[in-house]
């Protein structure tokens, strides 16, 4: 037996991709060749693997060793292939039984033969399920892999243990699974005093998945409000937890919780940091890291217009495709956008106490930075005021949990209809059931020239969500009237 094929896994975009690690022993002179588009870290596996094999008490074959990572045209990176390479060489050389290569293995090898954790546990777990093979990895990696339902994951600490486990000569250790529970430390809405309209808008945004624009002076609590949105969103289900985890894994981070993600990139962040990309293997941007969660853009007008325009399409389509030489990957980006902005450069236009120091021209220049098409994406727009002393003393507001219950009920109604309200198309909006007063109100607003065609759609979407929050199948005049108050100019 001079040949073996071990399975490992790579994350291409957010899709797990099996990588076959082929090993061939034979040829005229002693040597070690590694092919299959390895990057530097992979190429250095040769030295780590040789040392680890010898330190584990196996002999390194005194012949020519060729290792190929297939598919050969997919760029490979990182140190996770050390373990499958070592297992492949050992079984190809007949040093250990061929059984040793019938696993999905990920792990970096230390020179002394111990296995180190690497990212990519999720991909390994998913490939293992797909191929119906056991997955072996270091404890930390194994825990991640075990989050994949149905994965048979085995924990190993060293190359010798890996061989023993893979060939069935040792009892496998089962990893402690990471239970994707909601993290407990989310911020509570009860901390927000006053801000009645903004609180309500936040609840509607959560219930219908609407994008939300908060406008107000510095210190009004825009950020405070936005940070509390994940806490009132329904927790992620198993599928979403994995989906989100995969995106974060592509950015080399572990994230396995039921709380929807919240990302708040600074306005100096680059286009690549926001949308995704980078040289070599593309990494997801903030818009994808916020998938199934909230992307919060503070100081919206400070973001370069080019960046904002680039964000529009991913948010609209729910996915972003990045093409690079050799690979083109698609990251999901179905996130809810919450933006905060000052009403003018100094921030105090319309403030109750502090006067604004900006001229009309400066204000209109500032507002023009946010393009009309982008502004159009915000179904909900509210003004946030700096609370006065009275409001600080006011009773705390409703806690997040109470609000979340209403939101979850409203989302359930939408799930049964099959579409989130924020995504309702014009034809779906036309089909909304409305009572007579609602139609009359909308008609009046339209004919009075108070509302444009696009504004009309936004009002109907928001009214639908308000009705859902009230548990009403029919949209009534009250719902439409309330919806009209959230489209305010800023």
């Amino acid at each position, binding site marked *: 037996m001079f040949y073996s094929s071990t399975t490992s896994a790579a994350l291409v975009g957010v899709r797990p991709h099996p990588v076959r690690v082929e090993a061939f022993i034979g040829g005229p002179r002693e040597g070690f060749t590694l092919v299959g588009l390895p990057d530097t870290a992979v190429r250095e596996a040769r030295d780590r693997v040789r040392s680890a094999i010898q330190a584990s008490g196996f002999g390194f074959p005194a012949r020519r060793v060729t290792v190929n990572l297939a598919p050969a045209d997919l760029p490979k990176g990182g140190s996770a292939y050390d373990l499958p390479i070592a297992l492949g060489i050992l079984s190809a050389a007949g040093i250990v039984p061929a059984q040793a290569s019938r696993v999905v293995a990920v792990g970096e090898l230390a020179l002394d033969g111990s296995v180190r954790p690497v990212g990519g546990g999720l991909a390994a777990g998913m490939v293992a399920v797909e191929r119906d093979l056991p997955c072996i990895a270091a404890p930390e990696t194994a825990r991640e892999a075990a989050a994949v339902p149905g994965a048979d994951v085995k924990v190993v600490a060293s190359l010798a243990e890996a061989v023993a486990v893979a060939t069935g000569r040792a009892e496998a250790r089962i990893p402690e699974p990471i239970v994707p529970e909601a993290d407990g430390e989310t911020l509570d809405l009860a901390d927000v005093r*006053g*801000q*009645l*309209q903004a609180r*309500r808008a936040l609840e509607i945004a959560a219930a219908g998945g609407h994008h939300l624009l908060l*406008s*107000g002076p510095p210190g009004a609590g825009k950020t405070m409000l936005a940070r509390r949105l994940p806490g009132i969103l329904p927790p992620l289900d198993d599928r979403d937890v994995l989906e989100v985890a995969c995106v974060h894994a592509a950015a080399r981070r572990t994230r396995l919780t039921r709380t929807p993600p919240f990302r708040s990139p600074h306005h100096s962040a680059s286009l690549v940091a926001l949308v995704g990309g980078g040289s070599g293997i593309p990494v997801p941007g903030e818009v994808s890291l916020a998938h199934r969660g909230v992307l919060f853009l503070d100081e919206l007008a400070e973001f370069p217009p080019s960046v904002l325009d680039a964000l529009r399409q991913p948010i609209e389509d729910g996915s972003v495709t990045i093409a690079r030489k050799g690979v083109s990957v698609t990251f999901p980006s179905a996130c809810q956008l919450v933006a905060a902005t000052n*009403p003018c450069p100094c921030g*105090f*236009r*319309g403030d*109750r106490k502090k*006067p*604004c*120091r*900006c*001229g*009309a*021209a*400066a*204000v*209109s220049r500032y*507002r*023009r930075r*946010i393009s*009309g098409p982008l*502004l*159009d994406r915000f179904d909900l*727009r*509210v*003004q*946030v*005021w700096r609370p006065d002393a009275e*409001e600080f003393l006011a009773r705390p507001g409703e806690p997040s949990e109470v609000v979340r219950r209403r939101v979850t009920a409203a989302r359930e109604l939408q799930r049964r209809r099959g579409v989130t309200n924020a995504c309702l198309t014009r034809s779906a909006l036309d089909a909304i059931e409305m009572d007579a007063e609602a139609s009359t*109100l*909308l008609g*009046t*607003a339209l004919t*009075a*020239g*108070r*509302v*444009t065609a*696009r*504004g009309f759609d936004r009002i109907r979407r928001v009214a639908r969500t308000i009705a859902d929050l009230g548990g009403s199948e029919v949209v009534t*005049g*009250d719902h*439409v*009237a*309330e*919806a*009209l*108050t959230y*489209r*305010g*100019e*800023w």
Partner: protein
Amino acid sequence: MNEARLRLAHAELDPERLRRLLGEVGTEREAVRALRRGRHRLSPRAAEALGRPVGELMEGLAENGARFIDRDRLPGGLLAAGDPLPGLFVRGALPHTGGVAVVGSRRATRYGLQIAEAIGRRLAAAGRVVVSGLARGVDGAAHRGCVEAGGVGVAVLGSGIDVWYPPEHRGLGEQLLEGGGAVVSEYPPGTPPAPWRFPCRNRLIVGLSEAVIVVEAAAKSGALITAREALERGRDVYVVPGDIDRPTSEGCNRLIQDGAHPVCGLEDLDTLLQLALGPPGGASPGPGGLVGRSVEDLLAEADDPRACLVELGRLEAEGKIHIAGGVVREAGGRVGNRPGTR
């Protein structure tokens, strides 16, 4: 009305001296007492007025068709923070909503006078209150334009309320009053004009306005003081550009260089003001006194905030109010080309 404030207003002190005095003694009542003790230099007329009974002072005012408005009852936003002004002497009806000030050189060119008058007319036609100082030159021209167009104007004097300065503007001032406008001054009747009083009244011109238009101003002009004051207090400043080789334009052109908005046409003015101030307020508050209130405050006061929102939405749909920037405004705004109305 606070008697001490009425007396204090008769002392003819400039704001700086008054602030210092109040800082020393604490209250307005104490300030009057201190002034009476005579250790402060006062004009003979002021010293005499301080000794007279309040009733007599009031009668003196009534003779001139004037009244004293205590600082607590002045329109909001008129006084800058820390302004010690006890109150204003007023003839006519002081409008409560912000006006637009038109200021400029006393020695204006024919061009300046012509533009000032046209602006006055235009503002009046657009329903704005024209505020100025009734001085020679630009001030007078703006008032004249306003009066001709049948608008409401406010003249802020640097002399007593019964002393017309310059004398030839007496007719204009009276026309202003007949047209439903007002003449105001911080000085008691009989106070003669004095150079140092004019810069002080500029702050009142700014206080009564939501935007200031500078028509013509030399490099060291009182109008520039007004413009600076306006910027400090968050008012928009618009400037009519002038010839670059004419000294009476230098101040204006420098203001533009510093970032003030140039007025490149009279049509511009309507748009600018509409954008900055919203539709002209007029004196009538909108439905149920909602206009000018913030949505947040209305909700906070409501028993049922949700119902209050619904109510506001209904009024908005019916075109009775317009909610912009979280504040209820009078209906009449445009739709379409302003960000956010789309």
